[in-house]
């Protein structure tokens, strides 16, 4: 390697993007405002796909039947994120979970909350794959029609 210390040239790019949520995506987000998690059912394989979407990726046909799914479900898997990067939405540590919502045939991604994260090992013992979780919604007047209208899913005990 050379003796000269290389010059580091810096550049901060700010590139504004504005993506359309699409017709189906818009309705899916608006329904979140209404406190409803919506899916669409594939007429061929009959699976209920969440988030609601325009077509079934496996059967490749339009999915036009809208179905409301439960806001309770089973925790399929999770992780406790404990590292930083630019523009991260939450400060670590935080829990991300994949949830099998009641009535849906694919899983759902969101945060898991109301778990003490002061000790990661301890927290991991509190969480169990297969445990029941329940969505905690923002109060209706605070909802904006985005994925954070659900604040997180909390572990619940069910009889």
């Amino acid at each position: 390697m050379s003796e000269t210390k290389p010059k580091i040239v810096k550049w901060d790019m700010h590139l504004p993007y504005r993506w359309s949520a699409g017709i189906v995506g818009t309705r899916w987000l608006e329904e979140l405002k209404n406190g409803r998690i919506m899916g669409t059912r594939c007429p061929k394989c009959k699976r209920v796909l969440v988030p609601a979407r325009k077509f079934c990726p496996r059967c490749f046909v339009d999915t036009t039947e809208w179905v409301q799914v439960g806001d309770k479900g089973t925790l399929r898997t999770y992780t406790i994120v404990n590292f930083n990067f630019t523009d991260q939405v939450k400060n670590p540590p935080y829990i991300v979970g994949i949830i099998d919502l009641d009535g849906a045939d694919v899983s759902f991604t969101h945060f898991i909350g109301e778990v003490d994260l002061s000790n990661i090992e301890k927290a991991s013992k509190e969480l169990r794959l297969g445990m029941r979780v329940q969505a905690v919604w923002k109060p209706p007047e605070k909802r904006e029609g985005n994925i954070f209208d659900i604040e997180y899913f909390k572990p619940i005990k069910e009889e």
Partner: protein
Amino acid sequence: MGKVAVVDVTQTKHGAPYTSNETVRNLVYEVVKELFDETGLTRDEVDTIVTSSSDFWQGMGCSNVFYYDAAGAYLKDSPKVEEDSALAFIYACMRILSGHFDAALVVSVTKCSEVPSIIDLTGIYFDPFYLRWFGLNEFSVAALQAQLYMNKYGVSDELRAKVTVKNLRNALNNPYAHRRMSLTVEDVLNSKIVSYPLRKLECSEGSDGACAILLTSEEKAKKFTDTPVWVKGIGWSVDHYFVGDRNLLEVSSLKVAAKMAYKMAKVTYPRKQIDVAEICEPSTIQEILWYEKLGFCGEGEGGKILDEGITEMGGELPVNPSGGVLSTNPYVARGLIRIAEAALQVMGKAGRRQISNVETALAHNTHGPGGSHHSVIILGR
């Protein structure tokens, strides 16, 4: 070159509100589904899907991940070619020629309305140590090219403006086109200067759109049609990187690409043997310059053949009956749309923009400032 058949093409209506309102993902689904519906091809029968988009032009890293299953690629072999969808077409041809695949979809999408401007996104083609600091972009380099051309051959502003007038007027015949209007040379010259001497109406704008093409082997083509369109020749090439390293008037990469494609297609006299050309003209001067490098006329004669009407709809070698890129420019998808339009001409399915008696059509695409990279595709019966 072995045989590759172009069986069907689909595209979105690039100027329609629906196209701007939908997501990139759903636009891909639309063009692919339409292709399946039109041909009767099932997803099972597709062996591979070559997609094309650009992460910067979509604002998403690994942009094909986002629309992968929308392209019908669930459990399929589907790579992504970046920046230039004509190259995705070319790659798909190679996959078929290898004998490993019989049916290949080529799909591309870009929504310019969702992303920063062409000026911003072509500005970052330039290296961060040297050229980027001058705020160069696609149009400023085209302007440099224009200055060189005007200086050498003395072509007027009015003559350049005729390219816009021709193409946007041609687009009135194209229900898929984005910008479709009847302009005068004065209208073009009255528009604001973007990068001297190029004016706003001499420069392409971004569009939203998607396109899909179905390619098959010779054997498989028989299932769909008795008269397939064949890919006769393909060529592609690139220039040096630094603007100062390049001869902007020579456009060597286009000459090399054209030579390669013409050799394969056994085209020795393009002006007579090509019946229609769909070329990529990011700005007016470049259409004039590309005529020369494609061999439609001699050096310095590009303005002349435009002026004489040779490249008009009724002329000897119509160029851009679809309206070209000045009309319709979903940046990455534009290459595939050139090929789709050329294919429609050979198929006789180009509606009001159909040129009569098309046996051989040429499609061309370019990307990179001042035309760094070019690809040429010859289609015919």
